Every structure is written in C-alpha cells, then in structure tokens.
C-alpha cells in the first residue's frame, strides 16, 4: 500500500516512457508490470525481430553478393538457434536498460498484475496503491490466433511471433497468415534461414496498409527470393495435424492448397483489456475493443484514468505509444502539451527491402479528392544504392498540386526506416517539396533519392 502521483499499469514502451517523463517533471511515479519491463516491444517484438532480421540480412548479402564483392566464403550454413539466442541477449539487455532507467528516475516498479479500482486506485495482489494525479493504463496487446477458422494458437504447429522468436531451429516450411509488418518480417527472417515460406493475406496485396506501389515493390523482391505469396486469399479450411498444417485457400476464384510444418499467425492482435476492472471503474471500451479515450487528453470515461499505447487505439506502434506516454505525463504535471499529430506517425516494416511511409497513400489521397502530383525516384538510379548493390525499391512522394504540401511519402529500399524521417520532419514542420529540394543533400547518399523524388513531383528530376 503506497501513495504515488501517477500509477502506470504496464511497463511497455508507452508506460515506461510515461513514467520517465512524469519523473522528469517532478511527479512520483510507479509502474506496474506483470512480466518484463519494456513489454512486447523490447522482449518479444520490435527488438528481437530486428536482431533476427539483421542475421537474415547478412545471410542474404553473403549468399547473393559475397562473390561479386570479392569475398570468398564456404557454403553458407545458417543456424536459427544461434541467431535466436543472440536476439534474446539483445532483448534482455534492452529490458535491463529499461530497469536501469526506472532506477535512475526513482520510479517504483511494482511487480504483478494491476487491477483498476474506482477512485484512482490500483490493486496489485493484495496491495492497493493510490494515485493522487492519475492512473494510466498502458497494458498493450498480445498475439492472437483465428479460432473461427480453426487456427487457434497451440504453440507447436499453430504459433505466433511469441513462439517463433524462441524456436531452436527454423522449420522446413512455414505458412504465415497475415502479410502486415509482422508477417512480412518473419517471412524475410525464415526465408533467409532456409524455410520454405508461403505468405497469405486476405486483403488484395501484402502490406495492405501501405501504398500499392510499395506493396508491389516488396512483393517483387519477395518473389525473387522464392517466397510464395497469396494475397486476396481466403482460408476456406484449416487442418491442423500433429506435425503439420494444411490450409485450403480460395485465391481469385481458384482453390489453392498450402502445406507447412507450422503456421505462423500474424493477423491482428488482441488487446489486454481483461481482468483490469475496467467496467467496474467506469472505463468504457469502443466497439472495436480499444479503451475509449478523449483524443485530446487521452483520458478515459473514468475521470483521472488515462490510457496510452496499443490499448488506447491504433496505430499499434511503439513510437505512437511513446508519444502518448509523454503527452499524458505532461498533462498530469500541469504542462499542457501540444496535440499529438496522429496523421504524422511513420509506419515501418523492417524486412528487406525495408518499407517506410508517412501520410497518405496515393489511393487515399485520390479518395479524399486531393489534387496531387506524384514524384518517384528508383534506387536503381541512386549512386549510393548502386555501390552497395541495394538497388531495389524507390522513393515516392505525393504532393499537393497547388501548394506543394507533402501529402504522403513512401520509401521501399535499404535503410528506408532511417531515411523516412527527413520526410516526417518535413511534414511535421509543413515544409513543402520545395524546401526538401532546397536542403542540400550529401552525395552520395540514399537520401538523395528523396530530394530527387521531390524534384520529380515538380517535374524536374535530375538523375533520370
């Protein structure tokens, strides 16, 4: 039993950043965490997958480029178990890093599952803690299967990313259901480790939320590496055996059959809203199951109870949770923050080539009736990309015809996740394509492709 200014339920990205910002602003904060600090992101999400993707990247470079680069290697052997253990080490270090940050900022970490009680109180085990300023829900989300089509997670043949991240060896074959960021990244990883991959997406294309050209560019690259893609595919029947799974699909009116040793479920996530005492405390949910919040304050329907991160609504991304965490901390400390610009949250998929975007897709811009000009620049015409044999992909900038506003930007290519931020900064500050061009880009860099795409949208691309 203790009193705090702020109690944060959930020590993932949104929660722990909220706690740090609270502490910076002089509030006494506590984080309730039932598992490891850092949440899904640090332990079984963002961080370990990127570690594995790096293994996959190096494997592909050695496999496809080593000879041309003048490097002689023997036959490449891969061992997923070793790569997995390295990824665990990286994840554990990061989780310890979060623990250190909590200590550094004198944030109390309460181990256990938190339950909301009316009146800004949180119960953990038999203890009841009270928050003077507010309780912040940051309980996140988790993997889920699709029991309605017979694909309930069983941990052996029907698995989620939670299990895939701990496999001792890469399966001989893997069907992945859902070709969003998670599905596409695991397709990339296991493909590099020799698994026969079938990527299945119910929507008409892989990475369905990205711009169609970005999807197509990635699809082309995946196919080239032997990843089988079925988009617009409906699973009509799933037969889960002891050592394999058979999926019957309907793709464009044709029946397909996919057999795999395992199936990885990567279609959507379940929200951690159960057993939190939400209803009793007056916290309502939306019809999609997120916690209902006032978008300006992130306050729930229960006064003094706030909600951030995945449970507060889409997009379910760590960096969106970070910002919401800071936002609520500042509100609670009496520093009214600037509104969060949800139209400017970058989206990144870290497969190879990487796919990164911010703003609207071309389709969305057209649907909104905007007058637009599209500029494109392929990495095949970019000097730096050519020096590293990474010529796949393109930069695509959609600008408003009249004022040059950057309506949306899409990058497929090596390091897309890093170079997208030029366009995020541009959009955040309302720079137009002209300011992007005016900024002198170092040569040779991948970022030059951004300046060229901006120029192309103005009809004066230089290097094509």
């Amino acid at each position: 039993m203790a009193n705090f200014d702020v109690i944060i339920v959930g020590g993932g990205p949104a929660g722990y950043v909220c706690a740090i910002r609270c502490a910076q602003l002089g509030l006494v904060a506590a984080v309730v965490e039932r598992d490891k600090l850092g949440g899904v992101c640090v332990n079984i999400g963002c961080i370990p997958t990127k570690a594995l993707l790096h293994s996959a990247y190096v494997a592909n470079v050695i496999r496809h480029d080593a000879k041309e680069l003048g490097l002689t290697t023997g036959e490449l052997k891969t061992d997923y178990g070793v790569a997995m253990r390295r990824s665990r080490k990286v994840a554990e270090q990061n989780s310890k890093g979060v623990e250190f940050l909590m200590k550094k900022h004198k944030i109390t970490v309460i181990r256990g599952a938190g339950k909301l009680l009316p009146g800004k109180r949180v119960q953990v085990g038999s203890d009841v803690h009270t928050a003077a300023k507010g309780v912040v829900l940051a309980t996140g989300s988790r993997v889920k299967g699709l029991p309605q089509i017979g694909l309930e997670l069983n941990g052996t043949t029907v698995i989620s990313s939670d299990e895939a991240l701990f496999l001792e060896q890469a399966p001989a074959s893997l069907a992945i259901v859902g070709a969003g960021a998670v599905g596409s990244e695991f397709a990339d990883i296991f493909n590099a480790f020799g698994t026969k991959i079938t990527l299945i997406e119910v929507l008409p294309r892989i990475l369905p939320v990205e711009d169609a050209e970005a999807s197509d560019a990635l699809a082309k690259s995946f196919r080239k590496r032997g990843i089988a893609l079925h988009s617009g595919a409906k699973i009509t029947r799933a037969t889960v055996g002891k050592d394999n799974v058979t999926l019957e699909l309907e793709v464009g009116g044709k029946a397909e059959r996919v057999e795999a040793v395992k199936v990885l479920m990567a279609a959507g996530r379940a929200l951690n809203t159960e057993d939190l005492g939400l209803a009793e405390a007056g916290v309502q949910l939306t019809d999609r199951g997120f916690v209902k919040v006032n978008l300006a304050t992130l306050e729930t329907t229960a006064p003094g109870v706030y909600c951030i991160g995945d449970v507060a609504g889409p997009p379910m991304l760590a960096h969106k949770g970070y910002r919401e965490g800071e936002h609520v901390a500042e509100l609670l400390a009496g520093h009214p923050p600037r509104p969060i610009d949800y139209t400017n949250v970058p989206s990144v998929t870290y497969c190879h080539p990487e796919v990164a975007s911010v703003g609207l897709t071309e389709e969305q811009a057209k649907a909104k009736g905007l007058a637009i000009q599209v500029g494109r620049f392929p990495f095949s015409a970019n000097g730096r990309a050519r020096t590293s044999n990474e010529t796949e992909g393109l930069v695509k900038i959609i600008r408003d015809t009249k004022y040059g506003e950057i309506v949306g930007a899409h990058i497929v290519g090596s390091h897309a996740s890093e170079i997208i931020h030029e366009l995020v900064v541009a959009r955040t500050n309302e720079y137009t394509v002209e300011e992007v061009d005016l900024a002198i880009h170092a040569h040779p860099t991948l970022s030059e492709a951004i300046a060229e795409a901006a120029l192309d949208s103005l009809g004066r691309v230089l290097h094509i």
Partner: protein
Amino acid sequence: MATQVVMEALSPTMEEGRLVEWKKQEGETVAVGDVLAEVETDKAVMELVARVGGVLLRQTVTAGQTVPVSSPIGVIGQPGEALPAAGGNGAGTAAAVPKPAAKLPPQAAPRPAVPAPAAASSVAAPTAASAAAAPVSAPPAPPPSGRLKASPLARKIAQERGLDLRAIQGSGPEGRIVLRDLETARPTRPAAGSAPAAAPALPAARPLPAAPGEGFTDTPLSQMRKTIARRLAQSIGPVPTFYLTSEVDMERVAEARQAMLAAGSEVKVSFNDIIIKAVATALRQHPACNAWWQDDHIRYWHEVHIGMAVAIEDGLITPVIRHADRKTLREIGAEARDLAGRARERRLTPEEYTGSTFSISNLGMLDIDEFTAVINPPESGILAVGRIVEKPVGHAGAIALRRRMRLTMSCDHRVIDGATGARFLQTLKAMLENPLALVW
C-alpha cells in the same frame, strides 16, 4: 543631442523589466558600456549598460518600477543640454523607441482615460496606466524577436489567400503559424464593396486558430494576450472593461424604417431590430469581438447569437436571438417581440436566455442619451444604445437638425483591444448610416 535610454530585452522572452536599482545617478558621467542600472527580467537580475556616452540627464523611471521592453527609462546627453520634448520622441534615439500611440491611428489608445505617455516629469506615471497602454500600442502578433515564424506551407497559402500573417496567432512551437491557424483567418484584402467605411475599414485578420470545435474556435493565449489580461485585470477588476462611444446619424435608418412600415407587414420593424441586425452583421466582419473569455483561452464564435437585455419586474434578463446575422429583419422583429413578451411573463426556457456571444442593452426608450452597460461574462462586449434625438449637427456644409444616437460599447480588454473594438464600432456606424450595407 540627447539619447533615450530604453528598457532592453535582456532575455529572449523578456516582455517587461523591473528597474531594481539605478547604478548611475542623474548628472553622473557615463561611458559606453557602463552599467546604468540593474534590471530584473523574467529570469534573473541583469545589467543594463549604456549604449552611448555622456551624462545621465534624467531617470524617467524610478527603482522598483516595471516597464515594458522598449519603453524609455532615461536620457543621456551633454551637460546642460535641453531635455527632449514630452515623450522624448524628438530626441535622436540610438535605440528604437516606440512612437506615442497617437501617431498610430489604427492602434490608438483605446480609452480616453489612458494618460499620454510621460510628460516632463514622468516619474509619477502610474504603473497600471503605463502598463496598460504599452501592450495596446504594440503590434498585435509578431513575437518579441520580431521574426515572423510561419511554416512554408502556411506562408504559401496565406499569400495565395491574401492573409496577413502578422495578424494571425500561431499555435505551433513559439507561436509558429501553421496550416491549422489559417483555417479561420480572414483575408485582409477586402472583397469589392465589403468595406463600407474609409480605409482601414476591414480589420486586420484576427487570430482565429486552433482546432475548431463545434461552431467556435478556441485560441491559445499568446504571451502578449496573457500579459494584457493579467495587467488589466489587476488594474480594474475581474473584467477589465473600457468603453468606446460613437454617435451615429440615424436619418437613413429612420427613412428605411418608415419605408418598411409603409410597405406594411404583420411585424413592425423597430429601431432596436435594425440595431440587432446591424450589430450581428458587423460582428460577422469582426469576429474578434464575437468571443468569450475562457480564462486560459479565448473562444471565437463562428455563429452570432445576440443577447438582448430586457427589463422585467425587479430585474432583467437577456434572451438570445440566435444566428441573428442570418435572420431577416422581419424574423428578428418577430422573435425579439416574442422573447421580450415571454421574458416579462418569466416564461423563457434556459436555452432561450443562455449562449449569447454579444449583448445589446437599449435604454433609449427611457430617454437615456448614453450610458455604459456591464459586460455579461464570458462575453467580451456589450453595446449600450441611447435614445435617438434630433440635434443640430454639421451636415453637407450647413447646420441641420438630424436624428442622432449614441452607442457605447463596453469591451473586455483581455479579448478586445481598443482599436479592435473601435473598428467594429466604425463598421457598425457605417452600416447604420447606410442601411443598404446590411444587405451586402
């Protein structure tokens, strides 16, 4: 030649400084770089140094006084040199010194009561008055640094739409103007025929930024707006009110009304109805006066709802004519009569007497020439209407008897500055003197 010493901005955010102590006394010789005085800024006590050499001829601010940045605080010159004229403006000034408000008609001091800045021995100038005058005569928008912060996109769109960025309040970091701030701003270039009075008839586009709510825009308070609010509230009371009076020639309204009555209608249009319509129409052009003070922000209403003070037995009530700017005179007349009748019978429902964005109080029927009305918070303005009376006035080169009416507007200075209110009143006067303007 004598040189003004001014309160300098000693920190980037400093808006005013308190003179802690003079380090040089009157008559003392000073060299460039000598410490003249210690000044307390918003952050720390700093030294104010001499920018020219000579003799400190005069300290026009005493220790302990707080003055806005750029205000004169003393004079440096040669021994025996005559002091500059009142206000010190005739002197060759090394630093930029704001000209007295009187030289800037559009931003003229709002209330007659404000003393002219510092005549001769200005040491005794009351702090409240000088503090009040200062922000009013400052330009409305540019941040203290003088650099206009606006995003490239906002600049392009503002240029295209003819918006004056200096008149727009930015909601981005450090008051940077971004796209959303332009959404409700109005062009400063008047459309043909929309300016009934001589230039500058249309007000500078007034800050109407922030995310629009339902039917209104909430605007964060700028540093200057906060300072104005704080100082004026300290000086007068919870609502720092000032008053603007204007006499209006009502001949043409009277003619128009006669014509309408002659045309015959079930509703007899009254002068009051015409005034309501004119006020609502003028507010449409001056959204800055159609606003609520909300303590930490200002709510600029997109709709005009006119409160109409009605005397009832042992009190008064202000029924509301909603969307008065969009209603015809006949509609306003019928509604005003209905509301006033039911008000006297105390049969108004709460929604019929709440939510007004501006109010009118008319005591003309009680033979009052002019009066000041008390603002009905959170509204920021109320118009007091006096009687219409025949007066000998100069008209077309001769003295003529004409029907005249005096209007007095009470303004909440936290929201409406002197020139802002005056421009509204100017538009209103022009409309009443040429009622055709109401249908434009």
